[in-house]
């Protein structure tokens, strides 16, 4: 498995752009046990960074009319969560984390027609970025993939985002959530500055704040007055839904 295969998969998929009906075919098959086995295999394929299997399994489950959220929350996300935990324990490193994120992304691309079907139910708009002076965006990009997959609309401000830019963007896009990520202990203080600026702005009270990143602890999140905290990127969708009362 290499970058070439995955890129090719993405291109092919975008090119063919199958509709949900095309993928499902005329006679969907139902077999509960088989579906749970497929979901397990899908999780494992994400862990094993196997883009090809992720795509095939996702397509097959779409054909068999497995619920979108089941594919996502019982297949793709548990796989990514397992990888994140292994990463935290030092059992795998940045390459494995990135390659699994890519496999996850392939799965979500494959699910895209279904996402578009349910898009009328956008859960909320999220402004996201890494904090000032922090350029590490691997975690933030993973959160974006997961939030988009769960029906959130994302305004990605990129990296090194000042408190002023965060607050302006929330106001401009009328976002319900402001999400911040930091990898460095030396930059995570900017989360506090951003939340303070938000509290002094006229949009105070209209937006929930969500923080995460390797060095950020629940105590830190609480001390700076964040509304939500994610220990893992994979928990971002459930925390974001909870913040908006949509869990």
């Amino acid at each position: 498995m290499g970058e070439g295969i995955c890129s090719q998969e993405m291109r092919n998929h975008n090119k063919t752009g199958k509709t949900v009906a095309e993928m499902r075919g005329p006679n969907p098959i139902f077999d509960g046990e088989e579906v749970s086995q497929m979901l397990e295999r899908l999780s494992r394929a994400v862990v094993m960074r196997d883009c090809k299997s992720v795509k095939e399994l996702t397509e097959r489950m779409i054909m068999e009319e497995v619920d979108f959220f089941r594919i996502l929350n019982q297949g793709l996300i548990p796989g990514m969560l397992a990888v994140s935990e292994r990463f935290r324990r030092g059992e795998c490193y940045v390459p494995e984390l990135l390659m699994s994120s890519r496999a996850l992304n392939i799965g979500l691309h494959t699910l895209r027609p279904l996402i578009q079907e349910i898009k009328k139910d956008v859960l909320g708009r999220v402004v996201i970025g890494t904090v000032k002076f922090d350029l590490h965006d691997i975690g933030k990009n993973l959160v974006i993939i997961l939030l988009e997959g769960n029906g959130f609309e994302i305004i990605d401000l990129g990296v090194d985002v000042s408190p002023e830019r965060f607050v302006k963007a929330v106001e401009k896009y009328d976002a319900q959530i402001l999400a911040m990520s930091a990898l460095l202990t030396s930059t995570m203080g900017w989360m506090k500055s951003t939340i303070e600026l938000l509290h002094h702005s006229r949009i105070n009270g209209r937006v929930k704040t969500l923080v995460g990143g390797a060095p950020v602890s629940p105590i830190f999140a609480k001390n700076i007055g964040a509304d939500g905290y994610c220990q893992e990127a994979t928990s971002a969708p459930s925390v974001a839904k909870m913040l908006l009362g949509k869990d």
Partner: protein
Amino acid sequence: MKDYFLHKRIDHPKLLVLACAVMEQEIRRFQNGKVEFKFFDYGLHRTPENMSKVLQIEIDQVPEEEYDGIVLGYGLCSNGIVGICAHKYPMIVPRIHDCISLFLGSPESYQEQAEQHPGTYYLTPGWIEKGETPISKFNSYAQSYGEETARWVLHEEMKNYTRILLINTGGYEIEPYQKIARENAEFLGISYQELQGSSALFKSLVIGPWEKDFLIIERGHTIQQGMFLDI
């Protein structure tokens, strides 16, 4: 805190320094016969959870009444030292986010660099020898996953970096390191700069005085993240 050991009527404290291997040369310069050193693999910083476990085991194994204190040659290192507690000795810990402050001589110099050029990949002779460089990372990724994937991973990991900064703390024949650092900058297609570092903070770390840039953690007390933050 100004002179912790003098206050305890210990003129020349006997210290055990537990430090990261990337700063071995800089630290050894201050060997004064009263200090013992033990260096640890730089790779510990990649897994903060493991770093604290490894250091805690080491600290627990130090025999009682052998030293006057333990010095940690680590910064907060992504919380890698959070939770460490020494029951037999006080600990001296630099109040810094990571070792770059030590190489640059002060937390202020590091902050200045990080704010002016947030996309800096720092290298020192110790990092090049005992740690890793973008090229060494690429080679290791390529060995596991092939060149194409390695290129993609390194790009994803490094795409926001804009310069390589080689910190020269002196005491080295610097040319070979300059060559490697330049090669890395060329490999990534980013700028290369060099900066004179300082030994001042290394000196204080090993022989004192342990003033504003250091924390004294009394025996039985635990290192916490908040001790390093100004918020």
